[in-house]
């Protein structure tokens, strides 16, 4: 009798999950601030929908593990897969595995190398990284001009992990901006990596300060490093009114630093929107609908003027 009940229970569970749409999600890492907001975007949207189940896995920054997770998703019969790629140059195999099994796949946030020849049932949802670095650097350039420094300004740049596409692109954006006529007056004294980390940025900035060079601007590839630089400058007794500091991400910590008058510029990348967009695309593809193969969620420049709008977002 007991046995039958258990079997009946299992059968009920199986049938109820078979009714639902199951989406497998593999994230590059769970401990990243921004990716966590994105992941929550997917989770919260799914929670608000009837009959949508998401199963989210942590690839722990390991390419091989991520491919295994995708194959496991396929084996367990998910309706679609969302991939936040660990390594954007290793996506061919993922695309091939999903295509062979006929399972729709959506890349989110990080642009796969094969983005221009994805099969019909695959798509890419992200923000265009060129915008972020450019928006921040150009705003800094305008602020420096407004401060009367158009005759010459010097700065430092804190770069993210050098193996990461966003770090490379954002740094290149800064170089591009200070190469245009309007912003040529800015020169970089030095550029180094602080691996996206607040602690490393603090130490790096203090090392720079110990050289005693005069500088007017600090470009950081992300907000955490911008905050680290600010903490180091404040510890050295520098008035934050005299230095322009830029970040990217518009995290809560950064917005409060901006409110306190320390951070001047950041850029909002809509993590939540990207997560929701990816889930929408995945559900549409799972139901055989057509979607745009490249969905771009725009970046938004954040300054003290409009920061209030973002305080509860990321």
């Amino acid at each position: 009798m007991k046995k039958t009940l258990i079997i009946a229970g299992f059968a009920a569970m199986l049938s109820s999950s078979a009714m639902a749409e199951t989406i497998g999600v593999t994230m590059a890492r769970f401990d990243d601030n921004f990716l966590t907001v994105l992941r929550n975007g997917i989770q919260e949207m799914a929670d608000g929908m009837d009959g949508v189940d998401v199963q989210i896995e942590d690839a722990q920054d390991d390419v091989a593990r991520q491919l295994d997770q995708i194959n496991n998703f396929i084996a367990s019969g998910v309706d679609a897969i969302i991939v936040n790629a660990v390594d954007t140059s290793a996506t061919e195999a993922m695309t091939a595995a999903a295509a062979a099994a006929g399972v729709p796949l959506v890349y989110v946030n990080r642009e796969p190398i094969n983005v221009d020849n994805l099969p019909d049932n695959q798509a890419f949802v992200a923000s265009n990284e060129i915008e972020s670095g450019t928006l921040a650097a150009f705003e800094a350039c305008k602020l420096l001009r407004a401060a009367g420094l158009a005759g010459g300004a010097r700065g430092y740049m804190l770069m993210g992990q050098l193996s990461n596409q966003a770090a490379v692109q954002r740094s290149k954006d800064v170089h591009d901006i200070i190469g245009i006529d309007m912003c040529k007056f800015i020169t970089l004294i030095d550029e180094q990596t602080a691996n996206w980390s607040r602690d490393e940025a603090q130490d790096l900035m203090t090392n720079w300060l110990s050289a005693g060079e005069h500088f007017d601007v600090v470009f950081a590839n992300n907000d955490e490093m911008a905050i680290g630089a600010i903490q180091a400058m404040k510890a050295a007794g520098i008035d934050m009114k005299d230095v322009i500091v830029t970040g990217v991400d518009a995290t809560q910590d950064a917005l409060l630093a901006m409110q306190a008058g320390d951070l001047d510029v950041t850029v909002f990348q809509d993590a939540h929107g990207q997560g929701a967009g990816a889930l929408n695309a995945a559900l549409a593809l799972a139901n055989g609908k057509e979607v745009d193969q490249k969905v771009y969620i725009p970046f938004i420049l954040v300054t003290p003027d409009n920061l209030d709008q973002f305080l509860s977002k990321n």
Partner: protein
Amino acid sequence: MTDGSHGVGGVTFDASRRRWPNEVNIFAALILIILIFEALGALLMNQSFLFDSRGRFDTIFNEQRLRIIILQVSIIGIIALGVTQVIILGGIDLSSGSVVGATAMITMSFAQVATVNGHPNPKAVFGPELMDLPAIVPVIVGLACGLFAGLVNGLLIAYTRIPPFIATLGMLVSARGVAKWWTKGQPVSFPTEGYAWIGSGMMPVIWFVLLAVLFHLILRYTVYGKHTYAIGSNEEAARMSGIAVDRHKVLVYAIAAMLAAFAAIVLSSKNLTAQSGMGVVYELYAIAMAVIGGVSLAGGRGSIVGTVLGALIFGVIQSGFTFLRLDAFYQEMVMGAIIVGAVVLDQWRQKRAALRS
């Protein structure tokens, strides 16, 4: 790690054969590295590395650089103090970086303020009844986390007899899991002023120096220290002579993990935030500091003074690289070469000392 050749009174333990303590060699290496940076600075940057060549300070030194050299290695240095004891014991602790991550997350959750700039704390983990607590609460919570992790490590190693490498590797993976699970990956920010004081300014250096002096004295002059060296030199002999080896191992691993936990408290306070990725690969840097400082991975040999010098070598190199504006890509490559080079040199020196006797 009970290699017979490292027995008490064996060739490598015969201090009388050595003309001067090993620490002198390491100190000489430190001076040599500083001189190299001075020379390169004069040559390439037209600026002194450690001296005030631009008249910015009242003293002859570039104070700011001296400070950052020590400050940037203080937190990993605190971990290295514990790792040193574990390695002298003949073990290894791979879990310290992850213990830092987990402890930072849990501790910071008990150190938050309720309001920031007039807004409710956007990163609140608990309700208002657990916010604005006195700083002693998160500190005790943090040390308790360390104690727990250390007891698990120590008990596994001492009583199930699995190799320390495996036991602490397990903790490395599990504790990182705890760090991520605690807030589902969300960072924890905005601590109280009291908590922020712990890691503010040069406080990390003060903690590092105080703890280094404390553990130097303990290792040098107490039974605890003698037993640690004895077990690391020859575990069987130590057991025969009546030392409670298993109990002592648990104690050493517990102390090491509590030092890692304290490092986490200082780190999260210094940064005013805790993130689940904090402390990744710190264990390897801590081990590298100890090894560069002459602590033998075979056990039984090494000292706190050596490890502190090893930490300083790290700090000097890191600041030196930035001073010379060395391309970021080269920095890691050179750093790796220096770590391996230090151990090769140490091996060679040991072999020569053994041959002499």
